[in-house]
């Protein structure tokens, strides 16, 4: 079946088997290997992408269903080669990861949370990432990363000298 996918701002015309998941399509056909397979039954969240800005499990969407949306993967929030977004940088500052496998899902979830809620409480951060399982960190440094990112983003474009 043919499908046109808009991923990270670029359109791709693809011919795929109907049963191919969006996850497999992103990884194998578009070589965007930053999105990961953890369970393939919708529980772990390692496959998280943004569909029109909202986190969704790409293992539960067929590629042929994914047209007409703006799909964002981890590669799409990276500003440029060697550059990190404030969220990505905050994760590095607090060491909000170890093995890195759940990290793209966590970062996309954080991006979506902060886009809608610039000053989330700890409880709101925990609720947002509760859909993404991590086996390495125990979540503490991830929560701290997102709180730090929120604080920094709020402070962006603040004048150095206040009037």
């Amino acid at each position, binding site marked *: 079946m043919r499908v046109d996918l808009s991923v990270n701002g670029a359109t791709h015309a693809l011919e795929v088997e*109907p*049963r191919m*998941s969006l996850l497999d399509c992103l990884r194998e056909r578009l070589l965007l290997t930053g999105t990961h397979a953890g369970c393939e*039954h*919708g529980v772990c969240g390692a496959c998280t992408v943004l569909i029109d800005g*909202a986190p969704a499990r790409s293992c539960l969407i067929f590629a042929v*269903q994914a047209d*007409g949306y703006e799909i964002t993967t981890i590669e799409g929030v990276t500003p440029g080669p060697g550059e990190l977004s404030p969220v990505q940088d905050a994760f590095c500052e607090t060491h909000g990861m170890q093995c890195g496998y759940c990290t793209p899902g966590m970062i996309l979830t954080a991006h979506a949370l902060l886009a809608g809620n610039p000053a989330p409480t700890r409880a709101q951060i925990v609720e947002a990432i509760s859909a993404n399982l991590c086996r390495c960190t125990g979540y503490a440094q991830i929560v701290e990363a997102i709180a730090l990112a929120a604080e920094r983003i709020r402070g962006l474009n603040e004048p150095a000298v206040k009037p």
Partner: protein
Amino acid sequence: MLADGDEMRIIAGGQTLVPLMAMRLARPKRLIDIARIPDLAFVRKEDGSVTIGATTRQCVVEYDPVVRAELPLLAKVLPFVGHAPIRSRGTIGGSLANADPAAEIVLVAVTLGATLIYQDGTRRVEVPASDFFLGPMLTAMPATGCLVAARFPIWREARVGVGFQEVNARASDFAFASAAAQIALDETGICRRAALGIGAITPCPLRLDGIAEALIGTRPDQAGVRAAVESALADIEPLSDLHASAGYRRRAAAALAARAVIEAYAAAKAAEDAHAR
């Protein structure tokens, strides 16, 4: 299309069907994706009720102002349904058609006495929730049917409050037992109308009309409700499985029902008089 063969399945949100397919437990040869049929996604307030199209995404319903104003019990339970990424794709109709006895949306449909509307060929059929849900994953809808909408009654009473309580292994897992309550009070704080449902412990959610009626004219008290529910469940054999025994489910259901009623009662007392708005 569904009439053409039984290897066809409808897919809307896919949050239940696709895991089954990934594990090769469901093996449809073809899928009919109804998620983008525009006529099937809507939230419409009509006289005395709110009708929600089957393919309306759960996250849309969760934040819809009409739902929040007129169907407070549905709005209450939605944050408990899976996780946000599930709700961003999953649909109201998907949950109802799946008919998991532990599903929060199914519990609300039963508790409020919603009407399920499905299309079978050219026939449009309306079934009350009490007749629609027959067992675990089993509904009155034939295999050739497609759920198109669910209609939930609006309570016109002043001072309506809702409560929802569940117990599960982890937050967001399927419940071992759950309870939903909706209560309306008069100006003096006495119960005028009540609805109470218990989920996850039996093949379909239970609507406890007897207990709901007995609340009318009273100020609900937790211990009394708990005892009444335990008594009402005495003749029922709740499900027993590796997660929880039947005895646990019975006790937990009673405890949760009581808490849900008290939660609804407290919310109702705090609510503004709807007519005064």
